Structures are given as C-alpha cells and as structure tokens.
C-alpha cells in the first residue's frame, strides 16, 4: 500500500488556505484544511463603542461587506430592542441581494468555470467551446461577467454611498431612504442583469427557470432551444462529464438562517424570512427550526487559547495561541450546530428554503460539488426576483420612514445588552454576536460561512465539512490538484473572511523592473 502525504498550497484557490492530504493508493484518506493567517477582528472590537462595529466589521471582507454590516446592525438592534421600519429592511435586503448577485456571478464565471479551461481537459468534448466562453480575459461569458457585475453593485452605492465597505445601516434603520430616482436607477441595473442572465446564462425566461419542478424538468430545460446553447447547459455538461456530480459531498447536515427578512414583520420585531431557514439533520432526515442557542465553536485543533468543548459565541473568545508543533493546525475555529458538522451556502439555503428542483436533484443524486455550484447559479435568479420585489414594495411605500429613532431622551452611552444578527451571505450562514457593557463592546464574535465549511476538527475529532468533502477522492495525478480545486472551489472559499488578512506577498510578487 502506497501512503503519501501531500501538503498543497492552494493559492490558486485562496491565498490563506493550505490543504494537507493523506493519500493511500491514489485515494484521499485524510484531509486537513488549514487557515494560515491569524484572525483578529473580534479582539479589535473589544472595548470600542458599540456602533464602531458598523464601520469595522464591513472591513472583514471586500466581497461580502454588506452582509457583515447587515449582521452587525441586526445584532445591535437585538441588543437594544430596536425594530427597523419596513422600508429600512427593504433597502437592506435590496443591497444584500445586489452584493450576493455580484459574488455568485463572479465566483461562478471568473473563478469556478475557468478551471474547466485547464490544459488537461483539452481532449474532452466541447473543450473549444469552454475556452470560447470561460477562458480568463478572453472568453465571452468571462468578459460579460466582468461588465455585468461591476454594474450591479451600483445598487449598494445608491443607498450606501459606496461599495464595498459601506456603513449605511444603523440601529433603527438606514441612512438613506428610497426615492423615485434611486428606484429607477436600481431597476435599470436589475433589468440589465436579468436580461443578461436570461440571454447568456439560462437561455430562457427567468421565472420559467425558477418554476422548474423537478430534476427531469431541469434536464429537459437544458436540452431544448436556446437553453441548450447557453452557458448553464455547457457548464452542466462539462461538469457532469468530469463526474463533479458524484464527488465532494461533505457533510449531509445543512444550515441556513433563512433568506430575505420580511420587512413588515421586522418592523413588528419579528425576525421572519421569506425563504425559510433551519437545520437539516441528515441522521434523522428532518428539518428542525433554527435555534441559535445550539451554535458553538470549538478550538481544540485551532491556534487559540484552549477551552473545553464548544462555546456559544456570546461566551466565546478568540485569544491567539500559536503552537505550530502541536496537533492544532488552523487559525479557523470549528463551529458546530449542537454536535453536528454542517455545510452552509446556496445549496443549504435553497434546499431548506423549499426549491423543488434542487430538492429533486438532491434526492436523485445526493449532494456534490456540481450541485453546490448549480445552487449558486440558481440563487442568482432568486436574488434578482427578491431584489425586484423589494424595489416594487418601496415604490408602493415611498415617503414612509426609513429610520426609527430610539424612543426617550438620547442616552449618554449606548445601553447594555446582548444581541445577535444572522443573515445568509453569499457563502452561507453568517452570524454576529455582541455583548455591550457600559457603552462599549465587551464581547464580539463573528461566525462566518467559511468558518462553518472550512473548519478544522472539533473536540470530538470530527473533521470539518471541506475535509469530509475530500475524503475518498481518487486523484488522477498527485502533482495535479485540479480535482481538489474543483471541490474546494465549489464551496466558494473565503478564507480571508475567516482568518481576515491577505498576505501582501501574494499581491506584490510582480515587478516591471
């Protein structure tokens, strides 16, 4: 039996990620995902004014800064008992939707699909067509994605003044409400994105695509008319040809916080979402209502000061304790739902949210690297639909408040309180937990989607979701990590979110001199 250890520096996937694999006879038998840089955002927030979280946490990530802002403002509103007016939630949902659209489209066509242009696939059917569509800087879809996604985030700039890293959500609402000009400007962007999606990606009407009821309708869609020549059908054929629908399953437990907060309910203080969330327990085959009290983080295999078992984020801490020569191996923590290892992301969001087509595919084929990516593309259509409905509702409620000041005299210091904010970010379930004492932050914990997915082992030794998704993978050539890249990329990795720093060595390795 040949047993070799591979240490893969997957910088082509994410600059702060390493993967260590144990391979026996060409099959992965053990995997460890390593977040290689220290995350310090929670420590930075301790002792600061509570509202500083609205400025600092959007800097966690340049791709999903709006989702961090949304989670932060929800956490503070929860701590202080504030309920945003309906128009505020509409603006927040619209901007989060726009950010999700750019992220899903960029990941799909600037980072996932170009992997299919690898030279090793030159002899595969439709390789020339794949190059024509997805080759970096050359392919038609690649270039169209560059153009389309730089437009869509203008929606955030309309209300937030800038994207990324805006801070326009404040406890009690948003800083800028809707007016006719903004609504028309945003509508133009959404309409342009939808037209492009229908013509170039889906090859058909978006509402008809969302209405597909099951797997057979999905396959039929991709074989007919313009859809058969569109990008989605090409991706589907190529991915299935590579058997990506049969590998990279990972954890069967799914987590979603629910998508698109219901504006009127939020104004009443009820945190309901239009697309339901929850926890899918793969052991029992049942969906459970979400209980944020079950979320806990382990550090047994992380480089943080140790504590026993898992801690709920309100009781959590993030004190670095780097021990490279121990069995600890990552700067990422290990979040768990109860004692379950979960996966989160578009697949979990849409399966728990009731998407019939994906549920049918999941029943027929199970989870896979390709189904995760397909769910990401399907969510683009939902994002456009939900964003448009937010605009339409704002048009019906123009002039209504977008900010509700706290009642009573202005306090000298922000009141004490404990709060949490949960949103579905582009990569999945994102949560912020805060404790405010004497006007400043006593504790702040951020549990990112990639922390859930890329977690190291926990106190019980359970491998994280990414680690599980690599087990059993047959490697064609240990020098060629393309298969591993497909699987990891299907998770839409964002280690920068999870460990929070990008090495400038990565950025500055070129010189014209």
């Amino acid at each position, binding site marked *: 039996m040949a047993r070799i250890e591979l240490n893969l520096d997957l910088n082509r996937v994410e600059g702060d990620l390493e993967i260590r694999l144990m391979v026996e006879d060409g099959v992965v038998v053990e995997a460890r995902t390593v977040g290689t840089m220290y995350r310090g955002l929670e420590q930075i927030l301790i002792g600061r004014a509570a509202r500083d979280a609205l400025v600092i946490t959007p800097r966690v990530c340049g791709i999903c800064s709006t989702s961090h802002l949304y989670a932060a403002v929800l956490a503070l509103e929860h701590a202080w008992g504030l309920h945003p007016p309906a128009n505020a939630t509409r603006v927040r949902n619209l901007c989060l939707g726009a950010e999700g659209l750019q992220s899903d489209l960029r990941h799909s066509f600037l980072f996932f699909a170009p992997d299919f242009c690898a030279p090793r696939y030159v002899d595969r059917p439709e390789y020339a067509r794949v190059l024509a569509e997805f080759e970096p800087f050359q392919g038609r879809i690649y270039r169209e994605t560059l153009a389309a996604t730089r437009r869509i985030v203008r929606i955030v700039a309309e209300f937030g003044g800038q994207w990324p890293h805006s801070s326009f959500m404040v406890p009690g609402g948003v800083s800028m409400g809707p007016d006719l000009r903004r609504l028309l400007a945003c509508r133009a962007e959404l309409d342009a994105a939808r037209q492009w999606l229908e013509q170039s990606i889906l090859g058909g009407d978006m509402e008809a695509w969302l209405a597909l009821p099951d797997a057979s309708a999905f396959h039929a869609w991709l074989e007919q008319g313009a859809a058969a020549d569109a990008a989605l059908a090409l991706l589907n054929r190529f991915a299935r040809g590579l058997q990506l629908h049969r590998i990279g399953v990972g954890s069967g437990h799914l987590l979603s916080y629910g998508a698109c907060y219901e504006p009127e309910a939020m104004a009443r203080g009820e945190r309901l979402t239009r697309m339901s969330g929850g926890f899918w327990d793969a052991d029992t085959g049942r969906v459970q209502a979400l209980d944020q009290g079950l979320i806990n983080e382990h550090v047994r295999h992380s480089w943080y000061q140790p504590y026993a078992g898992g801690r709920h984020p309100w009781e959590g801490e993030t004190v670095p304790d780097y021990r490279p020569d121990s069995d600890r191996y990552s700067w990422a923590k290990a979040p768990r739902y109860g004692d379950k290892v979960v996966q989160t992301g578009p697949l979990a969001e849409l399966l728990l949210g009731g998407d019939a087509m994906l549920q049918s595919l999941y029943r027929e084929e199970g989870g896979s690297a390709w189904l995760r990516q397909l769910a990401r593309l399907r969510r683009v259509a939902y994002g456009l639909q939900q964003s448009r409905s937010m605009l339409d509702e704002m048009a019906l409620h123009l002039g209504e408040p977008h900010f509700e000041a706290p009642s009573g005299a202005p306090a000298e210091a922000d009141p004490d309180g404990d709060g949490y904010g949960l949103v579905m970010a582009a990569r999945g379930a994102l949560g912020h937990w805060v404790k405010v004492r004497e006007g400043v932050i006593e504790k702040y914990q951020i549990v990112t989607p990639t922390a859930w997915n890329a977690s190291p082992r926990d106190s019980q030794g359970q491998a994280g979701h990414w680690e599980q998704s690599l087990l059993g993978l047959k490697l064609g050539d240990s020098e060629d990590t393309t298969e591993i890249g497909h699987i990891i990329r299907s998770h839409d990795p964002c280690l920068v979110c999870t460990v929070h720093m990008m090495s*400038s060595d990565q*950025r500055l*390795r070129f010189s*014209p*001199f």
Partner: protein
Amino acid sequence: MLLAQHPPLKRHILCLGNALHGDDGLGPALARALAASPRALPADVSVFEVGTRGLDALALLEGCSRALLVDASQARGQAGRIWQGSAAQLLSQWQVVLGETATAHGAGLGFLLRAAASLGEGPDMEVFLVEAQQHRAFWPALSPAVEAALPELIARIQASLERADVV
C-alpha cells in the same frame, strides 16, 4: 436652443495597496498626501483609495476619460525607484500570472489591467509603480526609501496631468 451638452471629462487617480503592510501602503499614502493638498491637483481630478482588490476598482474606470493607477511593486534591490508607463506597456513586459486572479480577494492591479483590456473600453490609463523595499505585514508605515519617493511621484503625476491638460 441647446443642441448638446457634453459633461466635463473627469480624471481619476486610483491608489492601490494595503496601508497595514509596509510599502504596500504606497497607494494609500499617496492618496492621503494628495487629500492634504487639495490644490495639488486640477479640479476635475478625483483620487480614490481602492485597497487591494482590482476587481472592485474596475468600476472606477467608468465615467472618466483618463485614469492614473498607482501601486507598489515587488522589491528588486532599488527601493523607491519609479516606473511610469501606459497600461499596455506594463502588460507587455510584466507577466501577470493567473494565480493572482484566482479569487476576488487576490485580484489586484494585474487583474485590473487585464480585465480593462479584455473589455476593450475605458479611459486612457497610465501606471505609476514604486519599487518596495520590503513587504512587512502589520506594519503601518512606509520604508524610508519609499517614503522619500513620494514627492517625485506626486511631481510626476502633476506633470502627467498638465501634459494631458495641454492636449
């Protein structure tokens, strides 16, 4: 009768870099220096601190007739020397490895230039690179050599803008 009204042509200076990573903070340092001397630039020039993500900066190449891009480059033993040239020149002599473009987080200046070229539109672009002395993480200051290059960098930018004014 007003037959046509052309909006004034704007010019953008895009400053790339991470202010917390030593000489990678060259771009942000320039942006701060220019902001502190508002008369240093013509009124039609806007300065943007764009961080490290070239993908986001792509949007700032819209709505302007000319863009000056400023970044630090890799250390080669002569810290502080300045390279100035067109985007096309830089792309032709600077091998932009695809690894840099593998994720949105890592898509920096090279990605920005190639993306703009692939879209086949946008403003005239001139690039200014200052060679770094060292890449030092969590170090919020420039090295003396790069700091000393700032006045010349500003003078070159001003001269470039003046030449364009004449044109």
